């Protein structure tokens, strides 16, 4: 099912033409923003210099810090009279980031959410409980208006009071929920405690935080739903930027609205399909707050293969944040890659610590990993075999030789919230 079949399935050539047209329009539009006027002047680039989509590489990046520096309305390209809504992103460090929307922006955004929900088979037949924050967070109102647009019956339950949430799911016959994956797990646990059945549920839309495939299996088993990954960020409207289709193998990003590049976060160099790096996005249809080459900080890659659903090129599920990236002997390493490797080796646990040192001017990476209790045979040679297996799997995935230390089960630190698994000791020896 399609919401907007023409734009969702544009042939590559037509898409490129549309993107270029919209890119040029965006470049003209950002001239209303002081930051961009100055940036163009300083770099000596004129909007007219951009003649092809590849020319976008000539333009400088826009960073999160730039948006913070523009607090509150420095990045608005329209007068405040045209801005009908403001959201902010949580400011964990310093000031929050302000994003604004015109009436047209809100229509566009709701349309993208409608595409996503239609893509996974949802329709006006569905009853939708939206269990995310309805305040300054974009997830609440974003999904709300998209769901209303396709005619779903929307329950704006927001967060909190999990028992009441469960009662509403039962009483209203809710078929679809949207929340963070961690809240969904909590919901499942409370339902279990209450001995409450959630038989009407069939679809779960989860986003706003990274979650693994093993978490997907757990959520699907506990809630008896099909779980879909939702990606977005406030700077690009909010949720709805990219979404899994029924194949659930990568996310469709809406190329008619977002020009996507993958770059090496260390060098800024643009990478090819299938190469992992930071996603940089130039939104092509934003009115109130257009951006040029915005560095999302999210690590993903563009799929080389097409999708049988007929929509455009997919991106991989988010693999981590570029802030977490390590450069070891010139090779980029993300802690999420290590986690992924360990998840595939049952003989060791999923907790790990990474230590980076400089020995004789060479970077050395040491990874501590716990032996899985059930796989200890008592034999030293079996332990050595497990150790070698981890070293080899890491070498295949990272293209790096690492030292792996097997440690006792339960001995590594457990983190609540943001994990600090990397200790970079190279600075100490500079």
């Amino acid at each position, binding site marked *: 099912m399609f919401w907007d079949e023409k734009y969702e399935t544009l042939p590559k050539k037509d898409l490129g033409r549309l993107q270029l047209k919209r890119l040029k329009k965006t470049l003209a539009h950002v001239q209303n923003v002081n930051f961009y006027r100055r940036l163009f002047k300083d770099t000596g680039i004129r909007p007219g210099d951009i003649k092809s989509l590849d020319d976008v590489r000539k333009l400088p990046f826009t960073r999160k810090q730039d948006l913070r520096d523009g607090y509150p309305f420095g990045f608005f390209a329209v007068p405040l009279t045209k801005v009908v809504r403001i959201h902010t992103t949580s400011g964990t460090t310093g000031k929050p980031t302000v994003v604004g929307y015109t009436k047209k922006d809100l229509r566009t955004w709701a349309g993208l959410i409608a595409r996503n929900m239609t893509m996974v088979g949802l329709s006006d037949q569905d009853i939708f409980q939206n269990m995310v924050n309805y305040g300054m967070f974009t997830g609440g109102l974003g999904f709300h208006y998209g769901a209303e647009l396709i005619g779903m019956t929307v329950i704006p339950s927001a967060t909190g009071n999990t028992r009441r949430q469960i009662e509403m799911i039962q009483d209203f016959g809710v078929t679809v929920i949207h929340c963070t994956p961690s809240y969904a797990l909590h919901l499942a646990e409370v339902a279990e405690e209450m001995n409450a059945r959630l038989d009407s549920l069939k679809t779960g839309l989860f986003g706003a935080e990274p979650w693994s495939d093993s978490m997907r299996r757990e959520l699907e088993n506990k809630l008896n739903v099909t779980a879909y990954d939702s990606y977005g960020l406030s700077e690009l409207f909010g949720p709805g930027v990219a979404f899994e289709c029924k194949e659930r193998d990568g996310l469709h990003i809406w190329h008619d609205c977002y020009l996507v590049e993958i770059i090496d976060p260390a060098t800024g160099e643009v990478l090819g399909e299938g190469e992992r790096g930071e996603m940089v996005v130039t939104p092509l249809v934003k009115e109130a707050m257009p951006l040029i080459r915005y560095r999302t900080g999210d690590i993903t890659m563009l799929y080389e293969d097409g999708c049988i659903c007929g929509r455009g090129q997919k991106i991989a599920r988010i693999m981590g944040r570029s802030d977490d990236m390590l450069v070891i002997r010139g090779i980029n390493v993300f802690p999420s890659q290590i986690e992924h490797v360990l998840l595939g080796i049952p003989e060791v646990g999923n907790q790990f610590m990474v230590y980076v040192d400089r020995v004789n001017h060479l970077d050395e990476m040491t990874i501590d990993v716990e*032996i899985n*209790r059930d796989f*200890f*045979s*008592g*034999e*030293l*040679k079996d*332990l*050595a075999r497990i*150790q070698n297996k981890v070293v080899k799997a890491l070498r295949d995935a990272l293209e790096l030789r690492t030292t792996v*230390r*097997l*440690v*006792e*089960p*339960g*001995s590594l630190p457990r983190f609540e919230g943001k994990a600090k698994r990397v200790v970079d000791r190279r600075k100490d020896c500079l």
Partner: protein
Amino acid sequence: MGVNRFVIKQISVFSENKPGRLAAIARALQEEQINILAFSIAEADGFGVVRALVDSPQKAHEKLTKMGFNVAFTDVIAVQMKDEPGGLYEIAKILGQGGINIEYAYAYSGKEGAVLILRVDNVEAAIAAVRKGGAKLLESSLFQ
């Protein structure tokens, strides 16, 4: 089933190679009043396995597991040796002639003579070879 009485349960404990780990294991056994008859430490890259023959292997397993240690039982056999020059040669020769491959071994010398503890790839074949060669195997009841 007659050979089962010669199969002895050794406890094998996974341990990181860092100060204090052996002390933690030894203290735990002391607290449970478990006597260690023989033990050895095998070391690899950053970790090791502490191997011990104790008088109550089940109790030791439970205690150490409860403390968070990773513990496994390993089947070993014990062969009596003469505590004199050539004692080890006598036994090793029997095993060699019997085609028995030793994975690891450790020994102790006590009041009743010397004892060689053996971990072999095929326990039953080793027991048969030792008996055929005329050496004496110690029964597990002697320890446990």
